């Protein structure tokens, strides 16, 4: 286990610290709540000469991601951060970054998308971005966010992956609240991430290349998309290897999905980010009653570790999936759809319910999660689960 002192920092401070230790070649960013103080703090490190980073202030997030794509196309280690509407404004360039296979590492602090205008936490932004071709890793707290930032480049730059990666954590709940952090030494970080690999880049005037060209002459867009999926398949193993290598250094072992009391669980809830802590507490309370409850915390969402979910949930009688975002007009929320499809494809057949919670920062209390578990318990005992969404802590519901 790590003997590093425990610091009291906000989630945003933790990530800014990690970025300082990584010392990327370039950061291009635009402020947006609740991400702003990640890059604001980082800009102070730049101003104080504590990093060697070229810090590019831009006029929008579309420009921020455009600058990042250009920078990463030279082989420069490139980072940025955003939230919500800023993430939405990056949309076009997110696909371009992924298809050009540039290993940008971005922090996305989860915040609702308007409207009504709302600055608080939910996962509408990045859940909407799940098909952009970026790897997505969801984090519960400041420590996880810090650790995931350190692990970003070894995953994204790996020769079998070479995809951009985004790390998420909950706006305000984690970004602005103070929590414990055990940081690595600068030297440990430097050794863990190593030197950036070299690849044909835009600044090599001896060997000029063309990046991001039109495919119209030869029509290889279709095949390009196939290679992106192949890289995602490869990433599944590379991410776990990186988690394992990080565990050897710190004692903090991450998995694609973090199982809690799942070995003999009859009922289980799958949940992402900060609500996982309360979910585990409710599991403990139910276990004290003799109810075999368990929980799975989502970490790696893209690529999606379907086989691992199928194995983890196969023994359950009823599963609840908590979504802090909705997919309007679909059968349910995005995580629910993913779990439901996985269970069908792998032939596991627990009952599955969808619990929508926390939209626009709505509080999620232990008794709300307990309500979901009670419904799962009833379902395990023979009752039917609703086939439509169950809203937790909605007014009048």
């Amino acid at each position: 286990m790590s003997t590093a002192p425990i610091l009291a920092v906000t989630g945003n401070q933790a990530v800014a610290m990690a970025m300082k230790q990584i010392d990327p070649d370039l950061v291009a960013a635009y402020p947006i709540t609740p991400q702003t103080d990640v890059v604001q703090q980082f800009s102070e490190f730049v101003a104080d000469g504590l990093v060697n980073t070229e810090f590019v202030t831009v006029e929008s997030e579309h420009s921020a991601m455009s600058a990042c794509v250009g920078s990463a196309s030279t082989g420069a280690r490139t980072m940025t951060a955003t939230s919500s509407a800023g993430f939405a404004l990056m949309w076009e360039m997110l696909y371009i970054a992924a298809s050009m296979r540039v290993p940008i590492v971005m922090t996305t602090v989860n915040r609702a998308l308007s409207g009504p205008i709302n600055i608080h936490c939910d996962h509408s932004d990045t859940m909407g971005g799940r098909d952009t071709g970026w790897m997505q890793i969801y984090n519960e707290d400041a420590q996880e966010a810090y650790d995931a930032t350190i692990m970003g480049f070894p995953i994204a730059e790996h020769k079998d992956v070479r995809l951009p990666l985004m790390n998420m954590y909950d706006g305000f709940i984690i970004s602005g609240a103070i929590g414990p952090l055990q940081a690595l030494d600068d030297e440990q970080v430097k050794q863990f991430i190593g030197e950036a690999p070299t690849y044909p880049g835009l600044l090599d005037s001896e060997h000029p290349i063309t990046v991001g060209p039109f495919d119209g002459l030869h029509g290889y867009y279709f095949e390009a998309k196939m290679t992106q999926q192949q890289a995602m398949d490869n990433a599944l193993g590379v991410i776990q290897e990186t988690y394992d290598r990080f565990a050897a250094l710190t004692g903090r072992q991450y998995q694609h999905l973090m199982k809690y009391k799942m070995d003999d669980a009859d009922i289980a809830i799958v949940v992402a980010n900060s609500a996982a802590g309360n979910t585990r507490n409710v599991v403990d309370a139910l276990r004290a009653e003799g109810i075999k409850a368990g929980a799975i915390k989502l970490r790696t969402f893209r690529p999606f570790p379907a086989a691992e979910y199928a194995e983890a949930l196969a023994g359950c009688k009823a599963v609840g999936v908590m979504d802090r975002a909705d997919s309007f007009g679909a059968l349910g929320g995005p995580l629910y759809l993913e779990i439901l499809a996985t269970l069908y494809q792998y032939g596991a057949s627990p009952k599955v319910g969808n619990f929508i919670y926390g939209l626009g920062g709505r509080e999620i209390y232990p008794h709300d999660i307990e309500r979901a578990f009670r419904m799962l318990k009833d379902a395990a005992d023979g009752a039917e689960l609703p086939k439509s969404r169950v809203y937790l802590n909605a007014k009048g519901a």
Partner: protein
Amino acid sequence: MKWEIADIQQWPPGKHELGHAIPEAGNSCSYKTGGWRSERPIRDEEVCTQCLFCYFYCPDSSVIVQGQKVVAFDLDHCKGCGICAAECPADAITMHLETDFHDDGEEE
């Protein structure tokens, strides 16, 4: 490095460069965009003063100049925007519908 693509139509997904980069630069001239053109510029040699305005204004570098004189338009890349005709101070350039030309380049 030359991009050898004689059989590119048969390339499987893994054969392209990572991110579908092209391992050479300056290759846009190999993409012939003349087929997008609906109107073709025709220059009247008798009226042309060789001021070269068309050469400087052409957004597609499709005015061919040799020995400081306009000699032709590069019809493989001219998209028929008509800027040359609009800017010509001598009104030596006129735009003509592509459908009025035969395959041999002669106007009907």
